[in-house]
């Protein structure tokens, strides 16, 4: 496409977007494309009264209504989150059949850093606020929920079965360095995985699952600092892409694993400090923590890395990059064991003992 044609297509593109923006109570002055990939595009809309993000996403509109409803619920419950802007007629999002539009305030602030312990404790306190604010959400009829509560058994079984299958693939290619490393650790991970699976039969999980469904609580699903900023010295959510009905333990597990992977080792003190920050806002019971321990015991990171490798999920990664990441994951999973073995001691620290 030459320059002239590109300029023409941009003008047309902005005209089309202005038609979409007519649904909203704003007067757009500037439109700037910020990103466009994987069926998701985001524009910065400048107005005399501030900036907004317009997001276009190729997603089932019924699913988006569930997410937008959750966003609306969170902001009404006072969570520090970019305010969703309803259309002039009160619509939370616009459906184009196979795609949607959603408009919300554009906020700027300092980044939330994974390598800053104070930021991470603040992020955990935010996660607790998120879970509390999510309580009482009643999705509108016709919206498509995503539920993971009550499906943990199936998910664990699926992952363990895949791990067994990947073991066969690795055994077929013992000369491959990744496969060699995988085979060195896979039995230990399978043992941990099956132990975690057995623990899912506990009454504690059943009770927490029931309680979560009753309370209408949901999870953020993939807590990532890319969607957070620091604004007025507190963590602020600038984007919400997805939510899932699941136990808060899922968000905690994902956040802890993500941070420890960046540190390349499981830092017990940091993990306790982070959970303490969470617990001060949304205290969990001992039995709820035991469910979190089970989920941390399951080798989610090891399974995910093997999945990526044996199914060729990251096409641009070379063998060195795979190995580097895999060694990192193994180091975190192995060093996590000491933390898992000291449930009582760590729980006391989380609950405030020095």
């Amino acid at each position, binding site marked *: 496409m030459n320059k002239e044609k590109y300029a023409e297509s941009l003008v047309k593109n902005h005209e089309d977007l202005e038609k979409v923006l007519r649904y909203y109570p704003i007067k757009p002055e500037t439109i700037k494309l910020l990103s466009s990939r994987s069926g998701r595009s985001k524009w910065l809309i400048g107005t005399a009264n501030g900036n907004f993000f317009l997001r276009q996403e190729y997603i089932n509109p019924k699913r988006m209504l569930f997410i937008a409803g959750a966003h609306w619920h969170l902001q009404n419950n006072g969570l520090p989150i970019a305010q969703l802007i309803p259309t002039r007629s009160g619509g939370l999002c616009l459906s184009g059949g196979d795609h949607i539009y959603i408009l919300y305030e554009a906020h700027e602030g300092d980044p939330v850093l994974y390598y800053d312990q104070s930021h991470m404790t603040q992020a955990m306190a935010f996660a607790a606020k998120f879970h509390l604010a999510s309580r009482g959400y009643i999705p509108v009829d016709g919206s498509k929920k995503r539920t993971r509560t009550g499906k943990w058994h199936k998910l664990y079984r699926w992952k363990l079965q895949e791990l067994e299958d990947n073991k066969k*693939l690795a055994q077929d290619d013992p000369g491959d360095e990744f496969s060699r490393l995988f085979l060195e650790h896979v039995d230990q991970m399978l043992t941990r995985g099956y132990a975690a699976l057995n623990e899912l039969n506990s009454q504690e999980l059943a009770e927490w699952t029931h309680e979560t469904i009753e309370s209408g609580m949901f999870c953020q699903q993939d807590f990532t600092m890319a969607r957070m900023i620091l604004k007025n010295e507190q963590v602020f959510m600038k984007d919400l892409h997805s939510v899932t009905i699941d136990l808060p333990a899922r968000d905690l597990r994902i956040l802890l694993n993500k941070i420890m992977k960046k540190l390349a080792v499981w830092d017990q003190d940091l993990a306790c400090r982070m959970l303490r920050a969470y617990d001060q806002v949304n205290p969990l019971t001992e039995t709820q923590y035991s469910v979190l321990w089970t989920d941390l015991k399951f080798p989610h990171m090891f399974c995910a890395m093997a999945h990526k490798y044996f199914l060729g999920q990251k096409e641009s990664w070379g*063998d060195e990059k795979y190995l580097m990441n895999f060694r990192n994951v193994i180091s975190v999973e192995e060093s996590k064991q000491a933390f898992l073995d000291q449930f009582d001691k760590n729980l006391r620290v989380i609950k405030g003992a020095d």
Partner: protein
Amino acid sequence: MAKQVDLDEIDIPKVDLGEYRFSPPSSMGWSAAEYEKLLNNPEEGIQKETFSPPEVPQTTLTELSLSDDRRVSISLDNVPKDKEDGSLNEVTVEPTEKEEVHEKKAEKSENQEKKEPSAEEKAPADDYIISENPPAKPWLAKRLSVFTLKDSE
């Protein structure tokens, strides 16, 4: 190995690995072949990769709101009304057993929910003005701070 749970209890589709052949990615990854092709014919690659703004389809947009009576459909320019996809209003989702429990709770807390400001009530009539500050502390809404599971029963 602590394989104490019967794997046949839950139905999970089995993958037949018989036909599957795995080959390691090598130093340049599995996409290396694609990259080499691009190096052999850069002109073609550049043309294919040229950026164009994301498409904004000219279709009827349906506003999705929190309740049926507030769903309004307005067609965009030059789009006849009869092309409108109103399927969302016709959708009926059969509740699962667990969802039914939740819905019973929802009915019980109907009065409470009515107090929550609706999207329509909050929809500004004129220009929307952004508040530069996040919600002031205490951040938790009064309604929620007194809401407990016990209350909802």
